[in-house]
C-alpha cells in the first residue's frame, strides 16, 4: 500500500528496511494517526529515519512523493532530479572562450530568480534554462565562466562563483552517518591500553599468589581497569583538490572519532605552514599557531596527516610559495618541525597509489616523511597503523 513511498524514500538514500516498513504499517493499523497528512509524515519519519542528518533526505523524498508538499526555500524549490548528473557536456576551449559572463554576482542571482519563475519543467543540456550539463549559468555539471552551481556533488570544473550545494557546507565534524565498521575495526589495532582510575578489577595472578602466601586464606587483590590511552593528532588537508575525497575523509573521520578519546584534529590547506585551523571553514577565529601545537602536545601523540599532497613543488620548498598568503618559512620547514616533535607520524593519501608517480609534490612529501605515505584504503590504513605501532 505504501510501497511507492517506501521505494521513493529508499531511492533518496535513506536506508529503510522491510522491518521498518512493517513497523509503520503496524502503527497505522493501531490507528495512531488517522487521515492527517502531517501526522502521517511525522509517524513515517519516526519509524523510518534513524538519524537527524537523514531528515532532509526524507523530506525531499516525501516532497517528491506527495506532490505539492510545501517547499522551504528557493534552493529546495528546485527538484533534485532536474539536476541529476545526466551527462556532462564536454566543451572545447573555443566554446568556453565564446561563453560570456553575465555580469557580477548580484546580476547572476537576480537572473536566477527570474529564470526560476519562468521555468516549469526538468531541463538538461541547453544554454538558458536551469538544469544539468549545459552551458547556462545556472545548474550543475556544466560549464559557464561565472556559473552558479545547484545540487551538484563535487565541483565539476571548479569555477562556480557560488556553490549552493548544501551538502558541501556540512562540516566534517558534523555527525554524518557512516557506519564503516571495517575502518573502525582496523583502527582498533591502534589501541594501546594502560591502567588508570580506581582499582576495581580483580587481579587474579596477584590474588592467587597472595592467597598462597596466607596459607590458603583468601586475600583479594584489585587492580585498576584498562583504558585506551593512545593519543592521536589528525591534520586534514581541506578544500581545492581535496573536494574529490570528501567522502573518504568523512569515513575516516567518523571512524576515528568513534574510536579514540584523546583525539585532536586540525585543518590546513595543501601544505602545513605557521597556522592551522580548528574548523573546516578556516575562519580567523579558529586559527591556531602551529608553534602552539608543537608546544602543547607531547611526543607520545601519534600524528596522522590526511591530504592528497598534490600541489606546486614551490608550495613545499620555497618561502612565499603558499597559494593563499605570504609564508616567511617554507612548508617543508614546518613539516619537518612537526615530524621532529611527533616521531610517530604517517601521511594518508586518498589519491589512488598508481597516480602518485605523476606528481612531483607527492614524491617530495613522501621523502620528507621518510617514505611513510600510505593510501587511504583499508590496506593502506593497516600498513600505516603498523608503522605507527613501531616505535622509531
Amino acid at each position: 500500500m505504501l510501497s511507492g513511498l517506501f521505494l521513493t524514500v529508499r531511492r533518496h538514500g535513506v536506508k529503510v528496511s522491510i522491518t521498518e516498513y512493517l513497523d509503520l504499517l503496524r502503527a497505522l493499523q493501531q490507528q495512531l494517526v488517522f487521515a492527517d497528512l502531517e501526522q502521517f509524515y511525522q509517524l513515517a519519519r519516526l519509524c523510518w529515519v534513524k538519524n537527524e542528518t537523514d531528515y532532509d533526505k526524507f523530506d525531499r523524498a516525501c516532497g517528491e512523493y506527495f506532490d505539492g508538499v510545501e517547499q522551504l526555500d528557493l534552493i529546495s524549490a528546485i527538484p533534485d532530479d532536474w539536476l541529476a548528473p545526466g551527462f556532462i557536456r564536454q566543451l572545447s576551449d573555443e566554446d568556453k572562450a565564446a561563453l560570456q559572463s553575465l555580469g557580477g554576482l548580484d546580476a547572476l542571482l537576480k537572473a536566477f530568480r527570474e529564470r526560476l519563475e519562468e521555468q516549469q519543467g526538468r531541463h538538461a543540456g541547453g544554454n538558458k534554462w536551469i538544469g544539468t550539463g549545459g552551458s547556462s549559468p545556472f545548474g550543475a555539471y556544466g560549464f559557464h565562466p561565472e556559473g552558479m552551481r545547484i545540487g551538484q556533488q563535487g565541483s565539476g570544473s571548479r569555477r562556480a562563483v557560488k556553490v549552493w550545494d548544501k551538502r558541501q557546507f556540512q562540516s566534517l565534524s558534523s555527525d554524518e552517518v557512516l557506519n564503516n565498521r571495517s575502518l573502525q575495526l582496523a583502527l582498533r589495532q591502534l589501541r594501546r591500553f594502560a591502567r588508570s582510575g580506581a582499582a576495581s578489577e580483580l587481579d587474579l595472578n596477584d590474588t592467587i599468589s597472595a592467597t598462597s602466601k596466607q596459607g590458603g586464606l583468601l586475600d583479594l587483590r584489585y587492580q585498576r581497569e584498562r583504558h585506551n590511552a593512545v593519543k592521536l593528532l589528525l591534520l586534514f588537508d581541506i578544500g581545492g583538490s581535496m573536494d574529490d575525497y570528501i567522502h573518504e575523509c568523512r569515513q575516516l573521520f567518523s571512524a576515528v572519532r568513534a574510536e579514540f578519546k584523546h583525539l585532536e584534529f586540525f585543518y590546513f590547506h595543501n601544505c602545513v605552514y605557521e597556522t592551522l585551523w580548528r574548523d573546516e571553514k578556516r575562519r580567523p577565529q579558529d586559527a591556531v599557531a602551529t608553534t602552539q601545537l608543537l608546544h602543547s602536545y607531547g611526543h607520545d601523540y601519534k600524528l596522522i596527516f590526511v591530504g592528497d599532497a598534490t600541489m606546486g613543488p614551490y608550495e613545499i620548498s620555497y618561502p612565499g610559495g603558499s597559494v593563499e598568503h605570504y609564508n616567511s618559512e617554507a612548508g617543508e620547514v614546518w613539516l619537518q618541525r612537526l615530524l621532529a616533535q611527533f616521531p610517530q607520524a604517517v601521511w594518508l593519501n586518498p589519491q589512488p597509489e598508481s597516480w602518485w608517480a605523476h606528481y612531483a609534490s607527492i614524491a617530495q612529501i613522501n621523502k620528507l616523511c621518510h617514505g611513510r605515505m600510505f593510501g587511504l584504503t583499508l590496506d593502506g590504513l593497516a600498513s600505516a597503523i603498523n608503522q605507527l605501532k613501531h616505535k622509531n
Partner: protein
Amino acid sequence: MRFQSNAHYIVTAELALAVNAAVTLQKPLLIKGEPGTGKTELAKALAAALDTDLLQWHIKSTTKAQQGLYEYDAVSRLRDSQLGDARVHDIANYIKPGKLWQAFTAAKRPVLLIDEIDKADIEFPNDLLHELDQMAFDVYETGETVRAVQRPVVIITSNNEKELPDAFLRRCFFHYIRFPDAEALERIVDVHLPGISKILLTEALQSFFGLRELPALKKKPSTSELIDWLRLLLAEQVTPEQLKQSRETGGLMPLFGALLKNEQDVALVEKLLFMAKRTR
C-alpha cells in the same frame, strides 16, 4: 492513554506522537537532541503520566551490557565459602539483578530509561540487541530464563558522541528533539517559573536568542540554562530595563555565567557585542 503536555512538562505534538507510538507498539524510543532539551526529563514525565515506576540506567564509558541484565558476584561467594556460610550452596544468592531484569519482572509496566547510550563502548548497543528485541535473556549460572511479564516502555537517549550500529537503530523508533521556538520556550518557562513577568521574559528571550544565533559559540545555551538564568535574574531582582540597557550599550548580559559555560565563549561574545556597538 495519550501522553501530552502537563503541568510539569511541555511536549510538542511530534514528540507526543513519537512517545505514544513507542508505548503502543512496544518498541524502544531513541531520543536525540542538543544537551539541555529535556531528553532525560521526558522519561520522568512519561513515568509520572503513566503512573508507574521509572528505572534509570545511566550509562558510563565502563558500563557493560551484562550489568544491565545481572551480575554474578563470584568474589563474595568465594569469600563466603571460606567462612563456611550456608548461603554459599545456592548460587542464586550471588546473582544481583540489573536494571533490565528489574524492568522485566516489575509488577506494573515500568518506564526504563537508558540514559546516554553513546557514552558506552561501540559494542554496547549490539550486545543488547536480542534482549531489547525479545525482552528475554538467560541466566547461565542458574539456567533460568528471565522473560518480560510485560514489555517495559524503553526510552533511550543519546548525545551523538558515537554512531550507533544500524542493526540497533532498526529496532528503535527515532525522534530528534529540535530546539524549541520562542513560543514553545515561553510555555516551557511558564511551567518552571509560573510567576515570571511577561516583560522580563520577553527581554530575556530576546537576549537569549541573540546569543544562540552567534555563529562560533562552543556551547550554545539551551533550555535548561535559560531556566537557570531566569531563576537567577528573579533571585537578583534584575529589572527588564537593566536587561534592555545592557543589550543596547553592548555589554554582556547580567549574570551571563549561567548561559556561557566557557571562557572562550565569554571572550567571543564580549568582542562581538563591542564590535556591534561600535558599528552602530
